[in-house]
């Protein structure tokens, strides 16, 4: 009886140990498989995410590049030219500015611009309105000579109505005798 009990205990112990061993082995194997699958899933998602990020980054950089290019175009187009008192002939520096502008307009053939002629406050209003037209037209005609289609440009004179600098000395006046260039959509 005692032997039988010992045997039973031993057998139970072995069974328990065996079961324990079996159970441990099963758990270990399952955990490893799941982890592997998860890592695999995570890697794919991560990769997709990275690709998405790279795509977005590239898009962003492209947008920034385009914006910078457009800003450079706008800046170049917006560069003003200046005139002497009661004059509308183009000075050498004004021609240089217009030549750069012409290249930009050729490189960006969809752009259309308005050329606005302006005067300082010293003359009288009606004559200045005509003088502003002469100044705008001088730039317009030079750009046409440089190969820009006339239909891409229009002119307007603001006379002395829109001074850049509201001051009353030559420093202000010299800034106000100008052509402004604006891109129209």
């Amino acid at each position: 009886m005692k032997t039988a009990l010992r045997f039973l205990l031993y057998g139970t112990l072995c069974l328990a140990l065996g079961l324990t061993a079996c159970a441990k082995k099963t758990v270990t194997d399952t955990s490893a498989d799941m982890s592997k699958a998860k890592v695999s899933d995570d890697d794919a998602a991560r990769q997709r995410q990275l690709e998405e990020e790279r795509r977005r980054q590239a898009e962003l950089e492209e947008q920034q590049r385009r914006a910078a290019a457009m800003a450079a175009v706008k800046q170049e187009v917006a560069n003003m030219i200046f005139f002497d008192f009661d004059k509308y002939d183009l000075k050498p520096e004004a021609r240089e500015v217009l030549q750069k502008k012409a290249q930009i307009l050729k490189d960006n053939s969809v752009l259309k611009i308005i050329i606005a002629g302006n005067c300082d406050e010293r003359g009288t209003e009606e004559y200045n309105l005509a003088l502003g037209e002469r100044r705008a037209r001088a730039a317009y005609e030079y750009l046409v000579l440089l190969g820009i289609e006339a239909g891409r440009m229009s002119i307007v004179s603001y006379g002395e109505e829109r001074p850049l600098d509201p001051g009353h000395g030559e420093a202000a006046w010299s800034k106000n005798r100008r052509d402004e260039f604006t891109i129209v959509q």
Partner: protein
Amino acid sequence: MTKRPVDRPWLALLLAAALALCAQAAQAQRMTIDIFGPGQAKVNIIQTQPLPLQEGQPLPAVSAQLRERIDRNLGYLPFLRKVMATDVIGGDRVNGPTAAGIDFKRFQLSRVDLVLTAGWREGNPSGLADVELRAYEVFTGSLLLGKAYYELTPKHVPEVADRFCAELMRLLTGSGDFFNSQIAFVRKEGKSKNIWAARPTGEDLRQLTRLSGIAMSPSWSFDGTTLAFTYVGERNHSLGILRLGDDKPKLVNLNGSSVISPTFLPDGQLAVTMDAGGQPDIFLLNGSYKVVRPLVENWAIDVSPSFDAKADKMAFVSSRLGNPHIFLQNMRTGEVNRVTMEGRYNTEPSLSPDGRLLAFAREMADGEHRIFFHDLATGIERQVTFGPGSDEDPSWAPDGYFLVYASNRTGQYKLYLTTRHGDSSIPLETGSGEAKSPAWAKLPLSSGS
């Protein structure tokens, strides 16, 4: 445009009364003053204290207001010299408003030429006051002018004063249009500029356009019913047209990008500078704003046309010789002659209605502008304004006697009145903000006296 606040019932009565009073005046020898000649005589005038038409009756409160208003109006006429009550023996009181009540001798002793009287009646059936205004020549004691106005309220005072003074001026000088005219001008508010108008006495100040951009260079039609102006938009100019009674102006797009200095001819056509041909030239437009023909075609700038009352001549500015100068074109032959030989910058011509005197602005050595007159008959030029600041935008009154111009002598551009004799300038009331580019015209017949 707003209807002027004057009730009409009393006007019909006025005519009959005026005829009756003037019948007596017609008998009298007329006193006249030549204000258009080379010199200008001065007439001494005194306005006596108002009196009741029936002795013992009370004077209405409005009597003092009318006296003050007439006194103010007389101040606009440089050919009148107001005599103070203290300079007359016995002062400015008379016994009655008619000749029987006036001791002309004591006015003669004080060298008074004209005596004005006002006789009032209060408590007529309407409860309002009536007035009889008279002007007597002191030397002969004869009645020069008599007018009666009925049912007056305080709001009628400026209108009655203007009408009486217009008649008095017409009687003395042959023209009373000063008190029967209007001045359009450009007033700046913020970044926008709009057209306003007022009587030369500052009455009836009103805004004519309410545009968000810049309105410039108003010009009246000769009948005073329509205004043309330049509207400067973001991308081009338009021709603005405003007819009396319209709430909003019509903006007309013309060929080219520029519409500068539109100016009416006496027949209602317009002369305007456009750049349709590639340079600013002056074109004649018909009533539908279509080009009839070019008036001035030149490689240079040609702007600011101005016509006499018959459109025999057109003055304009041209830079064909380098700097802007005034030129004159014979409208029949097309012959063009240079007018200004002095100075380097002569602009803004205004031709007097009789075609004799050309007013313009010349830039002086200090960079400021001054108003000059050029006598087209003699070629003699005369500086009329002397600052300080810059004097610009001369514009003749329809009578050819007064002239309005803009000056920034107080730091801000405002309007001032002077005459063809260069009399002392009188500021014009235009309200707040900068006022420039005046244009003068008679009131339309329907609203004038």
